[in-house]
């Protein structure tokens, strides 16, 4: 029998996120019993499917795990294959890979912020509704997103599943005049990106809960390279990342969660900004100095402001590289694969992406493991959900209002469900008993 103060909230199919997920919250005597994020995306078994496939083109296959951040999967897997085989990419290749990541971040963050989050900020249901009242703002949003898309096209061949990045280098190097042209596009989009950063700064709700952050840290706020650092103030070698993780199985979800050093943690733009903001581009620092003062932050909504700042940073980083580099055609020979194990670690838009694979003597894949950002954020997300429900119950808010707040906080994480349904091993352990992987 239901008493007053007992209820359930169920949300089937969250909107304005990437992929399929449902929420389920149970409240008893006005106390949260549980808050579950159920990922309902069907598994597609990529890690099993790539066994025995050539290590030279496996990255193009696994990039199909995710439509939105396929570039991150592609480059991370390429890095793991090169690491396993002892292949060292050229300096020019690294510049092109960083530019590829800039294009991804601009486009992907712009999609999340302008299409999914902006309606929340402007009290509208959708970008369609915003367009009815403020056409100019929507035009600016599409201009920034488009600049990222064009950057990806010129450097990598396409914004989704791009063909040019391969093991050992790039199958096509952009002509310098094309590179300069894209720099112009990015310059035109930069003012708009700054304007959107202002909009998000002025509209960030407050929600704080002490947690931990993990991200790659390096000298130029790049998404490739560097060490994995924690907000606890120490760094670990990328090779050992897995040893610091516990897998947490959620029997009600098609995805699994992770803890770092036995505690929930967050990866993504907020983690990067908390840990690495000193390394932002000088032009970004100059124009956004007032916003940088908000970090480090425990307010999860600041993830969206961090994304807005990253868009500007990627624009500045890309303009500099596109204007100053002299790209030259490189001789790409078919790389010689050696047997061995390798690791790839990249900061995807939603956080740290980890690949670990083994290549056998025939140059074929023995196994691939991956740890994706949304899975790492899962435990943290559910703890935030619990707190937000309890906080709202304590001040007497309605069930409907709580549902809206829950959707907003989940969206602030920018979760990616297509990715989240890939994990290390297909094995079920009851919740509570944790296996160290």
């Amino acid at each position, binding site marked *: 029998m239901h008493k007053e103060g007992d209820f359930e909230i169920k949300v089937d*199919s969250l*909107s*304005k996120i*990437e*992929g*399929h997920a449902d929420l389920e919250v149970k409240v008893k005597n006005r106390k949260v019993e549980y808050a579950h994020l159920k990922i309902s*995306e*069907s*598994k*597609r*078994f*990529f890690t*099993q*499917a790539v*066994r025995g496939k050539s290590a030279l083109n496996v990255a193009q*296959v696994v990039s*199909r*795990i*995710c*439509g*939105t951040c*396929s570039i991150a999967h592609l480059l991370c897997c390429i890095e793991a294959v090169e690491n396993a085989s002892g292949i060292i990419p050229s300096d020019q290749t690294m510049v092109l890979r960083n530019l590829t990541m800039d294009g991804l971040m601009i*486009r992907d963050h712009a*999609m999340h912020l302008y*299409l*999914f989050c902006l*309606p929340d900020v402007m009290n509208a*249901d*959708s*970008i*369609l*509704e915003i*367009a009815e009242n403020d*056409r100019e703002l*929507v*035009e600016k949003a*599409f*201009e920034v*997103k*488009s600049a990222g*898309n064009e950057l990806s096209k010129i450097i990598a061949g396409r*914004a*989704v*599943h791009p063909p040019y990045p391969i093991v050992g280098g790039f199958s096509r190097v952009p002509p310098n005049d094309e590179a300069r042209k894209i720099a112009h596009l990015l310059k035109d989009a930069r003012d708009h990106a700054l304007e959107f950063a202002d909009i998000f700064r002025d509209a960030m709700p407050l929600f704080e809960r002490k947690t931990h952050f993990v991200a790659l840290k390096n000298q130029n706020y790049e998404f490739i390279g560097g060490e994995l650092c924690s907000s606890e103030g120490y760094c670990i070698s990328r090779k050992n990342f897995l040893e610091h993780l516990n897998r947490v199985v959620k029997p009600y979800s*098609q995805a699994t969660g992770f803890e770092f050093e036995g505690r929930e943690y967050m990866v993504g733009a907020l983690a990067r900004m908390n840990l690495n903001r000193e390394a932002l581009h000088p032009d970004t620092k100059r124009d956004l100095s007032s916003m940088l003062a908000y970090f480090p932050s425990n307010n999860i909504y600041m993830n969206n402001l961090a994304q807005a700042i990253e868009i500007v940073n990627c624009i500045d980083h890309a303009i500099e590289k596109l204007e100053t580099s002299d790209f030259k055609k490189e001789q790409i020979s078919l790389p010689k694969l050696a047997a061995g194990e390798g690791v790839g670690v990249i900061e995807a838009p939603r956080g740290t992406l980890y690949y670990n694979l083994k290549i056998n003597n025939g140059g074929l894949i023995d196994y691939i493991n991956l740890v994706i950002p949304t899975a790492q954020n899962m435990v943290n997300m559910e703890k935030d959900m619990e707190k937000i429900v309890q906080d709202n119950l304590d001040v007497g808010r309605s069930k409907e209002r709580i549902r809206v707040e829950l*959707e907003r906080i989940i969206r602030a994480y920018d979760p990616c469900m*297509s990715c989240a349904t890939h994990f290390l091993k*297909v*094995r*079920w352990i009851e919740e509570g008993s944790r296996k160290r992987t």
Partner: protein
Amino acid sequence: MGLPFAKKDKISVAWVTFACSEDSSILFLELLNQHFFEWIKKLEFRHCRMLKEKGNSLDDIDVAFIEGAIATEEDAKKAKMIRENAKLVVSVGACACTGMPSAQRNVFDEKTKEEIRLVIERFGHMEKVHPIKDIIKVDYEVPGCPMDEKIFLETLERCFKEFGVK
């Protein structure tokens, strides 16, 4: 010769995804960069969860775009419901048109099938993953992984024509 459907100023569309990476959804959102203001005059996004939260409905759809393959009975049921409510159904992307790569488990060896059996049973997955045309009648296909942009634009143009949308 008359139009195949009653003439309209705007067609109601649905964008629905099943098992896939949603890469064609992303490409669609990229096409909006150039086409947004033109399309909102000709399209009513009646069901599009990536764009809006309120009022998503699969009733009385003129054109349903379906991305992804069918992996569960529940998905198959939903696809049939969409077919009943939509005048035209368009499969978008490789998974919807061919099943692959979402259907890669169909060709796993016995040992690998055994390895994934628990998941298949636990979440009510079907024995095999299917392209949309295995489950319902499909009017047009936009192949590619992600979907071929040019074919998508041509298909949309064709839909506009069939409903007399100018």
